[in-house]
């Protein structure tokens, strides 16, 4: 009796997730795919999404890796506070994040006059898209990397040091390879979050074709303007990317080193 109830509850939720996503594929006409991919808007959205998500990923890896390492290893006053602050963008609504970025870096924002004096205008630019993505997506990487670094046996690092490797080479040869499953999983997840970014981007970067109109924004615009087939094709592309991400994350999580 209870088993049946559990099975039904589980089946309902799984169906609730699968049916709408699978349904998108039924709306897909082969002729639409080619037609949609031929439109400049779709091509530019795809190109822009690829450029911006890999740029924000690069920034996240470059700045997030040292931060994750420090959070995993160092003890300093306010560490718990920094830890919590890093997690904030995960729970803050993206629209709020976009507004915050606009009020900080927009033309009339806190740093606007300084940036303006330097001839830099960030809002409603491709750079703004990358900033919005980094803001909302980097915590996913930092969290995973922090856990990965914390899981590396420090005796192995000590052994590496006594065998003659300096701190940087020990990090490269011992710490990173042993934390690699967590680092890869976190990077993939963070990239996927950046790819799906909508709220912060539209607030801070706008929805300008070729400048800030990434795939999710193009889906929205095409739906609004009654161009459903293009919206469906772009959505299916996003779902396929997401599927690759989920499979990768599960595969790397399954083979953690001892």
């Amino acid at each position, binding site marked *: 009796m209870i088993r049946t109830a559990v099975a039904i509850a589980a089946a309902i939720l799984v169906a609730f997730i699968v049916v709408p996503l699978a349904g998108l594929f039924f709306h897909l006409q082969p002729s639409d795919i080619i037609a949609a991919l031929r439109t400049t808007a779709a091509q530019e959205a795809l190109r822009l999404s690829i450029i911006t998500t890999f740029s924000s990923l690069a920034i996240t890896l470059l700045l997030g890796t040292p931060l994750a390492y420090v959070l995993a290893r160092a003890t300093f006053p306010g560490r718990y506070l920094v830890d919590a602050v890093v997690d904030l963008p995960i729970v803050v609504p993206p629209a709020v994040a976009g507004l915050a970025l606009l009020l900080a870096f927009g033309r009339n924002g806190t740093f606007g006059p300084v940036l303006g004096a330097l001839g830099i205008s960030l809002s409603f630019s491709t750079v703004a898209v990358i900033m919005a993505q980094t803001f909302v997506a980097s915590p996913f990487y930092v969290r995973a990397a922090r856990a990965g670094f914390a899981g590396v046996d420090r*005796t*192995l690092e*000590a*052994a590496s040091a*006594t*065998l*003659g490797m300096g701190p940087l080479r020990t990090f490269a040869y011992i710490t990173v390879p042993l934390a690699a499953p967590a680092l890869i999983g976190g990077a993939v997840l963070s990239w996927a979050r950046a790819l799906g970014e909508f709220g912060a981007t539209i607030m801070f970067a706008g929805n300008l074709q070729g400048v800030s109109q990434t795939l999710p924004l193009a889906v929205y615009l095409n739906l609004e303007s009654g161009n459903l087939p293009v919206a469906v094709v772009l959505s299916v592309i996003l779902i396929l990317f997401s599927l690759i991400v989920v499979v990768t994350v599960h595969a790397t999580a399954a083979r953690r080193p001892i």
Partner: protein
Amino acid sequence: MLRFDVRLQLREFAFNAAGEAANGVTVVEGPSGAGKTTLLRLIAGLVRPEAGSVVLDGRTLTDTAARTFVPPAQRNIAILFQEYALFPHFDVAGNVGYGLRARNIPRAELDARVARELERFDIATLAHARVNELSGGQRQRVALARALVLEPAALLLDEPLVALDLATREHVRGELAGLLRQVPIPTLFVSHDPADRELFPGPALHIERGTLTQLL
């Protein structure tokens, strides 16, 4: 000759150890939690003392008064860790060659030295085995080969037998004793097993709550 005089405030007690170890094995004994591992880490440079010095064969490695601190990577002091600390993502040859890689030894020479060391420890057939497939005794040999291939100036062994089951322990103890007698460098052998002390009846150090006494 290894001389040390190191002081460090630990959570439970003040660590205060002055002593020396000539070439050959010096057993370091004392109850668990007495500070035996801390002594090894201070000598290897993995922990900095608040005050004191470590001098090996006339070379000052630590001297807080003179603000001298040679990092562990440049001390040429080998440690055999309690659980051996083999690198799980390298095979046996990769582990043994690790320190040679750190010294940027050319590939051909590195391979030759690793091969020679594997022969010496009778683990040549395991060269490409993953370390988590090895028995306890084999792991210890790999760890020793990894340490000794570097021709270290001193060797520190942190309870090298406790990771082994009782049956292998006796056998490995004899093997290890024979091997260590051939290594003419200061060797600290941390143990809380009286059987180890019987095997190396020379000078010994005793640590109790961070305070060291030299036994003769």
